[in-house]
Every structure is written in structure tokens, then in C-alpha cells.
């Protein structure tokens, strides 16, 4: 039956995430952006909430909760409202763990999933994006060549979050024209983690270029081994996660500029009481809600294991445009004050602009 009400359990998780975002993330996010670092304490606190491990089955040491893209998007929105860099850092291990959980062989699950059920944050990541014009996840330049009992990987990747500290990477590479995923352990010969990237936004999140030069890995490291895996589904889970985060970032910017519009007086009255400004805020609110609902619908299809490409693609494209429109207007409503770093709206605009680039950097 058509319904827009999260379950009680989801509401509990959401309010927990909301509280964390408000009490922990919002206290430090500006400083994190300026320094380019995130205090370990915050990451560990988030880890203890079990956001990544909750859906790992008991057999692999997890609590065995239900895996749900809807729940994931609800959490992602709340956290991203707090801060996008910190959110992506917190959820980064899922980039590795979730594909293994959903599509890995039993051996792969047994080997890797217990790593994410411990007390301490476990860094792991995935490498999809490539540093070239016209990058297309379905037509990767990074290639995997079978050679005896091994695969040989060659190529360049960028925007690999936490590549330097991750013990395991899921590297996406083309094999016979399809995108496959391969587990590459830290220290594998031929895997080189480059300098930390300097980006317009996401400044608190450590991302790296990596290069693979004749990097040899055992055959059993291909995700799903011989039966392979569902790349489309992974991309759709990523689109849903990012759309939800875009909603969170946009909501933060809308709320801030709304409050500013109520306080800032010009020509004798708050600027919010002028229709030019008020209508900007109205449209921001409408498009934020619309994007959230589209994200939920795509997530809902993923949870039902239905084909969700169209829904996820439309939601993500809509979210990309929406978050840019909203964060840009937030800066505009604050005017000159929006341009200086004393206010956070410029940060949200920098982060918001990135969503069109971030495909594959988050997952639900």
C-alpha cells in the first residue's frame, strides 16, 4: 500500500543519526574542512553506532539486521546534513563490505565480512572513477587480464577515499568489455597509492589517486568469483546513496539561508518577507522534498530486488541539479556573507557541486 511513513525502527535509527549529526558533526565540520582532517574520535563514535556492520549476518560476526536501501538513504540524508566529508569517511568501508555482502562468494564473505564487525573503525574502500575526460563506469580504461591463476590489473584511478589507510580495496576494472570488481589488498605489488588529492570540496575527506601497474591478484579475488556480480545494482545503490546525501546537504543549506533570510534586515524588513527571496526558498524546499521522494522510490525498488536503473538514474540526475541549485541559492541569499568562510554555505556549494562527480563514492 502506498505509504510515506518510515517504520518505527527506521525512525529510531534516523533520530539517532540526526542527533549524532547535530551534536558531533556540526561541532567540528568547519574545522575539518579547513584542516583537511577528521578527528578519530568522531569516526569511532559513529562506528559504534553500527551503521556499516548492522546488516552483516550473524554467521560472519555481525548483528544480522535487515539490509535496506531505504534505511540506508534515511541515514545518509541525516548524516550528510551534518557534514558530507565526515559522512563519506564514516560510510567508506561499506564501499568494500556491501558488494562482498551482497555478491561475494561464501569464501569472500567469510574472509572479509568479519573484519567489519569489530569495535574499531575498519578502513576499506573502492576505486571506480578514472582521471580522464569522458569517464564512463560501464567502459573502464583500467583493465583486468587473466593470466593462469591470476588477474593482472593495469590502470589509473582517482577519488579513492581513504586509499592510504585502507587494508582492502575493491578495484573496478574492465574484463572482456564488462566492469568487474577485484579485491586488492594493501601492499600488493604494483598497487601504488599516490598523493592525497586536493579537491574543490570534500576537503576533510582524504581521497587519493592510485595506480595499478601489472598488479597481480589471485583469481578468487574477483567479486563473485566465476559467477560474477551485478554491477548495475552496485551503481544503483551508489546513485541512491548519493541522492540521499545530496538531499541532506541541500537541506542544511536551505535551513541556514532560511534562518538568515528571517534575520537579515534590508530596507526596513527581513529579506525573507520579499517574494524574490521567499520564492527562492519555496522552490528549494519543494525540490528537496521531490528529490527525497524520488530517492526513496529508487531505494524501494532496490529493496524489492527489482530493476531500478531508470529510477536511480533519474533520481541521481535530479539530485545533482537540485543540490547545486539549492546550495548556490543559499550562497546568493546570504550575498557577500555567503561568499566568506565565516558562514558554511560556501562549503555546501563546494560539496554540492561534486555530486555529479561522486558516482561510486558512496553506497547504501
Amino acid at each position: 500500500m502506498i505509504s510515506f511513513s518510515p517504520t518505527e525502527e527506521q525512525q529510531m535509527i534516523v533520530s539517532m543519526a540526526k542527533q549524532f549529526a547535530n551534536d558531533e558533526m556540526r561541532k567540528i565540520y568547519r574545522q575539518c574542512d579547513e584542516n583537511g582532517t577528521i578527528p578519530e574520535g568522531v569516526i569511532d563514535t559513529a562506528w559504534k553506532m553500527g551503521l556499516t556492520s548492522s546488516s552483516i549476518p550473524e554467521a560472519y560476526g555481525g548483528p544480522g539486521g535487515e539490509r535496506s536501501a531505504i534505511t540506508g538513504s534515511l541515514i545518509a540524508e541525516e548524516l550528510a546534513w551534518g557534514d558530507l566529508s565526515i559522512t563519506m569517511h564514516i560510510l567508506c568501508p561499506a564501499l568494500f563490505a556491501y558488494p562482498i555482502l551482497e555478491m561475494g562468494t561464501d569464501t569472500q564473505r567469510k574472509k572479509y565480512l568479519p573484519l567489519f564487525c569489530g569495535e574499531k573503525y575498519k578502513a576499506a574502500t573502492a576505486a571506480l572513477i578514472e582521471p580522464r575526460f569522458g569517464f564512463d563506469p560501464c567502459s573502464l580504461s583500467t583493465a583486468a587480464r587473466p593470466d593462469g591463476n591470476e588477474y593482472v590489473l593495469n590502470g589509473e584511478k582517482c577519488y579513492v577515499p581513504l586509499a592510504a589507510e585502507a587494508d582492502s580495496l575493491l578495484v573496478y576494472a574492465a574484463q572482456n568489455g564488462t566492469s568487474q570488481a577485484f579485491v586488492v589488498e594493501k601492499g600488493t605489488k604494483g598497487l601504488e597509492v599516490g598523493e592525497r588529492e586536493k579537491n574543490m570540496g570534500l576537503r576533510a575527506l582524504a581521497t587519493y589517486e592510485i595506480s595499478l601497474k601489472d598488479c597481480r591478484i589471485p583469481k578468487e579475488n574477483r567479486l563473485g568469483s566465476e559467477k560474477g556480480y551485478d554491477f548495475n545494482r552496485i551503481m544503483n545503490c551508489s546513485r541512491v546513496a548519493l541522492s540521499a546525501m545530496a538531499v541532506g546537504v541541500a537541506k542544511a543549506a536551505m535551513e541556514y539561508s532560511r534562518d538568515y533570510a528571517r534575520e537579515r534586515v534590508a530596507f526596513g524588513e527581513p529579506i525573507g518577507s520579499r517574494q524574490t527571496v521567499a520564492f527562492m526558498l519555496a522552490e528549494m524546499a519543494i525540490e528537496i522534498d521531490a528529490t527525497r521522494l524520488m530517492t526513496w522510490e529508487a531505494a524501494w525498488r532496490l529493496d524489492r530486488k527489482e530493476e531500478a536503473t531508470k529510477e536511480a538514474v533519474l533520481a541521481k540526475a535530479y539530485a545533482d541539479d537540485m543540490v547545486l541549485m539549492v546550495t548556490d541559492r543559499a550562497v546568493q541569499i546570504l550575498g557577500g556573507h555567503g561568499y566568506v568562510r565565516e558562514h558554511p554555505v560556501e562549503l555546501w556549494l563546494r560539496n554540492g557541486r561534486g555530486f555529479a562527480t561522486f558516482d561510486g563514492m558512496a553506497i547504501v
Partner: protein
Amino acid sequence: MIDFEPTQEQKEAINIAHKFAEELFRPASRYYDEHEHESPGELIDKTWGERNKGTLALGLDVTACLRIEELCWGDAGLFLCVPGPGLGGAAIFASGTKEQLQRFLGTFNEGDPKWGAMAMTEPGCGSDTSAITATATRDGAEWVLNGEKIFVTWGKRAAQNPGGLVVVWATVDKSAGRAGMKSFVVPAGTPGMRVEKLEKKLGIRASDTATLIFDNCRIPFENILGNPEVKKVDKSETKGFKGAMATFDATRPVVAAMAIGVGRAALDFVKEALQKQGIRIRYGVPRQKLTVLERDIMEMEANYKAARLLTLRALWMMSQFQPNNLEASMAKAKAGLAVTKITQKAVEIMGPLGYSRKYLLEKWMRDAKINDIFEGTGQINMLIVARRVLDYSRDQLR
């Protein structure tokens, strides 16, 4: 639980409505567009029969709006000919007593086709509904109505066909402002109510849009909806006006549902044409690799989806008895504008085929536009959303 799956019953409702849209509405579309003010008799009789069997019940619930989307996919103008209590009924539902509901709507569905209308707009006021000048004067056991109402959807049929009704907004005390604004049920054929003219319109031409004149029109005292007392205490007590606004919370999502039906008709038409040309929309290909056409189609589809989901949410909230004033206006503002743009883009994409009256697309573009105007223009709905977002009163944000 968040869920987007219609119930089995709703799916059947959609299927049945779609069949009517395809077999009854579409074939008649062009004729009634070009023969404005002619009445589609067969369609009226058939839909009335189905409606009373329940198969085409059109109320203010989610199921009804799923039907409405389908019927307007068929033809929005013809949909507005389907008999029923309509906006008049919605007003009675929103602010009538149990006794009034029974008296006015209890036997509405029996006998011959009947229509209900709501008369609000006047020559001198449209969006500013608090500025109405029509008057209602108490005279013993009766109210005497005087004034002119324009743009009354269903106006002629509601005022003339036996058993119909028109809900008229009038002031009982001009000095009281909004507090003096009340609504009155005027049964069809009441002496003193007459149809002055029918509008000639850009679109939805099958729908009658009438001017009604009230000239010492007398109705029983108990036909007033809501409290007859005028309370001049403070602004929060402006109940009559609030009755009108509560009606809008219920009817705006319905209009949004109509809008998305028209939008989908245009989208389906374009997608079918592209398919015949062997053009596939490549979802999942990076945006910089898409053709302009693909980007246009995806943008149209996304906007259609956005409008539809906002509409479903507003309706769902209503069905849960949750206040939906903000969400109703969000849905209406988005849907009205989205389908206006979708249909206009569709005409552009189809080129000479889009502009030609040989196809229905140009008609849908003309039909779609009304959804950005009636039941509150896009701008009025944006104003309502803005006030809610900023937590501003009418005086703080004008």
C-alpha cells in the same frame, strides 16, 4: 513502511480507468476540443453509470486520484465533464455538518447525472479570494445572495441540471473582512441564479467554464456551510476563510493528479514516437555522453516523477488525517509548472508533428496550462509554501 506499491484494488481501479480513458475519452478528444460547449452525452451517461457502480468513483482519496490521473491521461477536458459533486462536494466535505452532508450529497449519486461546482472567483478578484464582493444577506429563514461569479468550472451543468448544486462564497459582513466570508449551497435551478455566459478557452474546451449571476437568489438559512456567526476577535478565528482554505488543501492534490495525467500523455506520446524511430533512451550512461534529446526526455521524466510523488504524498497525508497544507501546495505548484513545461517541451521535440492539430499533443499542451492556474495559480501556491517554510503570516510575507 515506505511503500510505492498500489494495492490490488488500486491497480484494478487504474486499469479500469485507463480502459475508459483509451476507449471512451481519446476517440472523443478532438471532436469536443473543436466543438466547444457541445456536451459529450454518451461519455456523461457512461461515466455516470460507472461512477455509481463504484468503478469510477471520484472522491478525495488516493485511489480516486490514481483514477483521475488515468482519465486525464485520456483527456482532461472530458474528465471535467464527468458528473459528480466535484469541487462543490469537496467544500461540503471540508466544512459541512453531518446533516448537510446527508442532505446535499446523500442521494447525489441517484437518478440522472448531476454536477457540483464551487463559485469563488469574481471579475474583480481571483487569487485574492478574501476580496470577494458577492453578498449574502439574512432575511428571516433565508439568505439572499447577490453578486457575479466567473470561471466556475462545471458552472452551467451544476446550476442548470436538476439535482446539482453550486457552493457560492459570499460575505455576510464586508466590514469583517475574511471573518465575514462564508459559503452557501445553492441547489440547481434556484430562482435568481442564472448562467450569464460560457468562456471560450485556450484548452480544456470540453469543460464548461461559466459566469453565474446571483440576483436576489434566495436559499434556506440552513444552507450555509460552517458557523453563521461572524467572529471579529482575531485573525486566527477567521473560520469561514479557513473553510475555503481547508477545501483547497483537499482539492489541490486532486488538480495535481489531473496535471500529471496530462503530462504523462505527452511523455508517452513522445516516447512512443521515438521508439518507432528506433531511438532508445540510455539510462545509466554518463550525462556528458547523452544526446540533448536523451537529456530532455530524462528531465521530463524526472519532473513528471517528482510531481507525481509530491502529489501522492499530499494525498496520502490527507488519507491519514494529517494536516497537508504545505504538501498540498508543494504538489500543486510543482505539478502545474512541471506539466506545463513537459507538454511544451514535447511539442518542441516533435517538431511539425507536435504543432499539428492532426495529433493530440498540441491540445495537451493547451490543456496542461490550466493546471498552473486553477485551484490557486503556481505563484499563489509558491507563496503558501514560502510562508510555511519561513513561518511567516500573511502580513509578514505578502
